[in-house]
Structures are given as structure tokens and as C-alpha cells.
């Protein structure tokens, strides 16, 4: 669809222009190293546009802005971003909140929480593509780990989760499968189990073949693989040919947080890893549309489009950089839902200045806020889980009446 300007001879496309957010996500190499001034200018622009869009497309968010008397046009520069109205991510556990017609929703994803209700977040094609774009943009941080040459030929990823076909609507599993864009990937998980023995075999096999291996999984799954290797005399001398990428919650089945230092020690012992910089973590949640990857300094970098601020738990007032508080995000890459969320993670947003040389802020996630639901709702949770199990059972084995 083009037309030619007769006078100038210039050929012009009549296709809609590529939005600025997409140019940044998909077409800006080294976007984590943009000059600070450039980030300061483009972030407010992108976020203003996103707030306007969701005000007009999402009735709940529009009404919220109306209540607060907030006008997106009041976002003039970066200092105004703290004022963008945010709401707790837990809202997605209670109501469908969307900015897109149902017909455009490619899939509604769910959180993997076991503590009661799950978040449901609808995503359209553009939103999913931008998620993928955010991962692709961040993968440059892993380059030292994948070695020289094409990762397609030199690297094998061992994902301790299910393949995409089995991930269903579970957001964590889906996101973990996206590592496929980096290198050939083997999957070892189902919804309920992980084949650790097979993963341990393959890890040794990949290294024996002279390739690099990346172990991908939740902190708990990765720990269990390491424990399996140690208990069964299957440790490997990975040196610099093994790296580990964790994602998802750090909570153990006991409810206690896994210690990263202890996990590092365990992984170094089991996989013979030389340096802690080969053990990286990533942060994302179903209510967010960008993935925060760690650089070689093991610091989680914000992409240049994403704004993060910690807030005072007492009144949600923004806190200065470096102060611990409730983490909150303004993510303009989500088109199908307003991604202006107060998370229930406690953490710190650090000023740019990471020794790695990237120019964006870094985020440190300390832990989840312990909300009191357990005190009163454990039985409701039990019932909900029983209902889910029954639904699964009926789907797997509906019985003669069900199938007839």
C-alpha cells in the first residue's frame, strides 16, 4: 500500500506508522545503553500515551483516573511519572480489567500462585509481541554466557518446565518457554513433575559434546536438579560452559524464602560453575509485561520504557531511589490491560550507574509482602483447590455420564 509523491518522487507508505514504543522495543539495538537524556525524554512520552490509551479503553481505569482527577496530559517530564495512578496487582485476582475487546485477546494468562485466587490477565497479539521483544532486548546481557558464535549451534537450553504446548495459560511456564528464542531448548517438566534424571543426563551430554548448557527454571526446580546431581553422583565440571537462569518465586513449599547465597553455593558445587555471574535471575509477574533480566553484575535492569518506583507502605508516597518500599511499575508495553501496578514485593530501585555500563536503573527485589490471608482464608483456599482438582479430574476422566 504505497503512493508516490509526483512532485518529489518520494514513495510514501499508507500503512500506519510503527508506534514509538514498538520502535524502542523492537528496533533499538543496545536499548539498555541509551543516553540518560534520551530515556528521560522518551519514557514520559510513551507513558503519557499509554495512560491516555487505557483511560479511553479501560472503563475501570478511566473511572479511577476520573475519581482522582488525573489528566494524562499532566505528564510533562520524568518527575511526573510518580503521579501516574497505580492500583494493586491483586485487582487482577478479583475482576477482569481489560482495555481490549474480547475478540482481540489471544490468551488470558494466569498466575501460578498456590495461595488462593489466581490473577487473570488478557493479552492481545501486540502485547505478547512486546513481551517477547522485552526478552529479546535483554538477551544481550547473557551474551558473555553463551560464548562466541551462534547460540543456535553452540548452546543448548535445559528448561525445567513444560514445553509451550503444555504450559497452558500458566504465565510463568509460558514465559520460561520463551528462552527458545535464544537457543535450541529441551523441556523436562509437566504441570506437576520435572524429570530431573533426564535433565542431569542431558546436561552431562551437552557438555561432553563441547557445547554450552543453560539451565532454566524456578529457583526451587534448579535447586532440586542440583540436589539430584549431588545425591546421585552426577555433578558436572561446567566451568564457564554452564549458566543458570532462574525465574519465578523464591518461596519454598514450607513458605520460607529460598536463600540466594545458599542456592549459589549449591549450584556451584553441583554444576562446577566458576563464577556467580553465571547464575542469573529474572523478574516478571503476570500483571507485568516486561521481563527484568540480570546483567553480569547480577543486577536487574529496567528496560528504558519501564518506570519503577518504590512507595511508602504507609501512604504509597513515592520514595527516593535507594529506599526500600513497595515496588510499583508503569509499563507502557501492555496494550490489552493497564499495566500500572503496585506489586506486593518489597524492594529497592537504584539509580543508574551499574558498573556494567548500562544506563538504566536497577531493581532489587527483597521479598513478598506477607499478607494476612492465611489467617482467615486457608479453608476457602482449600475449597478452591479442591474445586480445581475436581475440574481437572472431570476433564481427564469424565466417566460414562460425562463422556456420553
Amino acid at each position, binding site marked *: 500500500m504505497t503512493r508516490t509523491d509526483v512532485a518529489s518522487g518520494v514513495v510514501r507508505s499508507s500503512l500506519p506508522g510503527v508506534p514509538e514504543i514498538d520502535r524502542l522495543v523492537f528496533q533499538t539495538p543496545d536499548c539498555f545503553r541509551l543516553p540518560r537524556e534520551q530515556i528521560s525524554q522518551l519514557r514520559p512520552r510513551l507513558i503519557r500515551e499509554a495512560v491516555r490509551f487505557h483511560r479511553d479503553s479501560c472503563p*475501570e481505569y478511566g*473511572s*479511577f483516573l476520573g*475519581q482522582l482527577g488525573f489528566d494524562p496530559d499532566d505528564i510533562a517530564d520524568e518527575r511526573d511519572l510518580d503521579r501516574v495512578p*497505580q*492500583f*494493586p496487582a*491483586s*485487582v487482577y*485476582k*478479583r*475482576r477482569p480489567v481489560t482495555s481490549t475487546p474480547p475478540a482481540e485477546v489471544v490468551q488470558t494468562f494466569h498466575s501460578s500462585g498456590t495461595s*488462593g*485466587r489466581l490473577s487473570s490477565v488478557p493479552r492481545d497479539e501486540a502485547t505478547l509481541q512486546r513481551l517477547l521483544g522485552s526478552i529479546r532486548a535483554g538477551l544481550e546481557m547473557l551474551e558473555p554466557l553463551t560464548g562466541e558464535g551462534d547460540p543456535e549451534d553452540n548452546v543448548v537450553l535445559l528448561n525445567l518446565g513444560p514445553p509451550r504446548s503444555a504450559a497452558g495459560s500458566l504465565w510463568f511456564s509460558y514465559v520460561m518457554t520463551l528462552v527458545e528464542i535464544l537457543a535450541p531448548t529441551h523441556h523436562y517438566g509437566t504441570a506437576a513433575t520435572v524429570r530431573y534424571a533426564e535433565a542431569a543426563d542431558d546436561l552431562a551430554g551437552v557438555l561432553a559434546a563441547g557445547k554450552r548448557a543453560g539451565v532454566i527454571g524456578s529457583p526451587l526446580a534448579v535447586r532440586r536438579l542440583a540436589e539430584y546431581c549431588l545425591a546421585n553422583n552426577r555433578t558436572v565440571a561446567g566451568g564457564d560452559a554452564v549458566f543458570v537462569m532462574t525465574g519465578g518465586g523464591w518461596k519454598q513449599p*514450607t*513458605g*520460607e524464602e529460598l536463600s540466594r547465597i545458599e542456592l549459589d553455593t549449591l549450584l556451584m558445587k553441583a554444576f562446577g560453575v566458576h563464577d556467580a555471574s553465571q547464575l542469573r535471575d529474572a523478574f516478571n509477574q503476570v500483571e507485568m509485561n516486561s521481563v527484568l533480566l540480570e546483567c553480569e553484575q547480577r543486577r536487574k535492569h529496567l528496560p528504558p520504557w519501564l518506570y519503577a518506583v518504590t512507595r511508602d*507502605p*504507609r*501512604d*504509597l508516597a513515592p520514595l527516593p531511589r535507594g529506599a526500600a518500599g*513497595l515496588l510499583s511499575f508503569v509499563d507502557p508495553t501492555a496494550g490489552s490491560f493497564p499495566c500500572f501496578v*503496585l506489586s*506486593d514485593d*518489597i524492594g529497592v530501585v537504584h539509580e543508574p550507574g551499574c558498573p556494567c555500563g548500562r544506563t538504566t536503573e536497577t531493581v532489587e527485589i527483597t521479598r513478598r*509482602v*506477607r*499478607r*494476612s*490471608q*492465611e*489467617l*482467615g*482464608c*486457608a*479453608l*476457602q*483456599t*482449600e*475449597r478452591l483447590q479442591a474445586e480445581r482438582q475436581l475440574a481437572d479430574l472431570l476433564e481427564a476422566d469424565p466417566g460414562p455420564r460425562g463422556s456420553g
Partner: protein
Amino acid sequence: MTAPTGVPVAVPLLDGAFVRRILDQDRHILAGVPLQEIVSFLDRVGRLWKSQEFARRRIYVRQLQQLAGLSAKMAETEADIIGVVLTSHARMYDIIAADLGSARVLDDWVPREECHVRALPRGLAVHLLSGNVPIASVMSIVRGLVTKNLCVVKPATGDLVTPVNLALSFLEVDEAHPVTRALTVAYWPQGHPGGELVTRSADAVCVWGGAGAVSWARGAARPDAGFVAFGPKRSVALVGPGADTGLVASALAHDICHYDQRGCFSVQQVFVDRASVGRLVERLEQALDEYARILPTGRWSIDDVGSVTLARSEERFLGAEVRSAEGLDWTVVVCPPEPIWFHPLGRTVYVHPVESLSECYGFIGPEVQTVAVAPWECSLAHRDALARLGVSRIVEVGLSNVFRPGGPHDGVYPLQQLVRFVAHESPASVYGKSLVARLDQTEIIRGGRYTDLML
């Protein structure tokens, strides 16, 4: 370890030698002690606790503030309640009678139909406590002692101070008294093998707390051990037409503010006759303000504070009417009825306007312990339905924390799990109601007269 207030605390851990001492103790040290002697000893200790000059009480009040985060007024009130519980001897006898049928059954054989029955201690009773309501620790220990069990008490990290100070006050009164010797307080962290061994060796286990704690204790307890579990539960209130909104608001504020809503009995949701909502909420705000003065909130952790703030923000986004103190003293959320999955506690109450109180039925199940009702007549109209739905107690608004003698606790009479009933049954010469002749079974079989003689 770190107390909920962030203060570091050194707590001796259970070690192998301590486990051995616990397991080697005479499990029946109190079996021969008359109930009146146990009650009398508790009364002696309790009278000291009633005095604000009692040194142990002063230490306790200070530690409750420093380590458990209670306000000064809450801590003093808690110490007062300990004094009242330990000295309420008449009430103890009533509770024992209600639970076991008779208080005398703990000391002697008591006739019951065609038997004489006696209640003997189970032996070693392990109490796994929760830290949300300090007085619950005292209740658990008193229950264990009046049933003459050897008690091993594991405090929760949320309240390390109540069981320890109670035990120390026993020691200070009489270190050689069998009641003192029958009480051990020991801490062990989750997964500690010594703690697991003690629990597995217990003849009775009494667990308070969340679903995880209860499930663990259920798995660890011996199959033949007595088992009592309290929690997790939540509580609600119903306010029907014709209530005096001023009085009800004040009573509701009490049920919301006591223990900053950490009790199972603390009211979290109120279903209110729609016509009264406006007036009630207005008066409730005033009452909650008053409670902020007369019973100030405790010191809250960042998690407590964050939970309340996030809940306020969530409700505002979803269009609820959120009223609150300027700070975090209280929050009232007026919204249509719905299940509250993430109740933030911290004196937050969800007020649901309803056309009929029966609309609450869809939001009530066995996880609800207490339903506080006003006006009282409404309780008569709804008690059958509420009982069928699974609630444990129906009380008047303002009395949610008062457990009247005669009432069960979370659906059971707990003392029954802490004793072992033994029957001394009547001899053949006693005809009993089922016979009109001597009970000679051989003769009955010979004559083929089973159906004639046995009823």
C-alpha cells in the same frame, strides 16, 4: 531470632538433652493432685498478676510491647486478662463441668448411668501455640493443667513472651509445686527433629494457628493421641433493622479493634440492613476513633502496614467507598457483599449493605468461627441457618472475645481430648434400665430369651 518488631531475641533451642528430660519426666505428676489444689495454685499466681506492681507482670508488659508490638494499653489489658483467667476458679469449674460432664470426674469416680466414670490425664500434652492472641496461650496451658497433664509448650515466634513469663511466675510462686513442675516451655523452629520427636511422643496435641501448622501437627501426632486444633478461622457481624446504631457501633468497634483483628473471633466483615448503613458507618467511624484513643493499635510491621494500604487502594480502584483515619488507625470499606480473600486485618472492616441479613449466607462457611449479631432478636431468626452453614458461635455484637462457659470452642469441647475416660461398670446384680432381672448372659442364651430380656 528476630521478634515481630524486628528486635533480635536469643532463645535457647531445644537440644537432645532437653528432649530427653522432657520425655523422661513423670507424665502423671499431676494425676494424684486434687483439682482444687491446681485451681488454688493458679489462683495464687493470678492474684499476683492482677497487681500492676508484680515484677513479673511489669517485665511481661514491657516485653509484649518491645517484642510482640502491642501498645502499652493493649499490653496492660492482656496482663489484666491473665490475672482474671487464673483467678476465675468458679468459671474454671463451670468450664470443666460443661466439657466433661462434671468437675469431680477429674478427682473421683462419678456415677453416670450404669457406670462410674473417671477422667484421667492423657499424660504428655504438647501445646503448639500461635502468636496472634496472647491470652490463647494462657487458656491452652490452663486447660492442660486442670486436666492434670504434663504440659510442654512451644511458643510462637509472634509471642515468645506470654508462655515464658507465665511459667516464670509459677516458678516465682513455688518452684517445687507439682503444677510448676508440670509446665515446660521450649522453643524449636519448623522442621526441628527434637520438636518433631516431642510432638510424636505426646499423648495429646493442642495446636493453634494457620492451616500449615495444623496440618503439620495432625501428621506428627500419634494416631492414638488426643488432638485439638484451633484455626484458621475468621468472624463476621450481622446488624439487622432496628439496631441502636450508636450502641452497636461502639460494640462493633470493640470486636474489630481487640487484638488489632488478629483473633479468630475478630470481626472482619459486617452485613448491615441497607436502611441503617449510613448512620451506622458514621457512628462506627466515631467509635473507631475512640478506640484509637482508649486502646491504641500496636506496632505494625511493614507487612501489616503494606497490607492495609494495598487493600485501601484496591478497594478504591474497584469503586468501593473507603473511609479511613488520617493514618492507619482504622479503615471502613463500604461495598456490596463478596468474599474477602485478602483481608488485611489492622482494624479494617468491610461493611456490606444488604436488603435481608440472609444475604450473608452465601459468604459464610465452616471457616467462620463467630457471628456477632445485633439486635439480639435477629440472632434467633438466623441461628438455625448459620449453624447449618458451619459457624461455631453466635454472640451479641461486642462480645466476640467472651467465650461463655458451656460453649464449645471451634465446634468441640477441648478438655475431652485432654483426658482419658475410664468406666467402672455396674456388676451383674445391677439390673439397669435394659433389664428387669439379673444380667446372666449364659442363662439368657440357654433359654433363648435374648430378645425378651435385653432392650
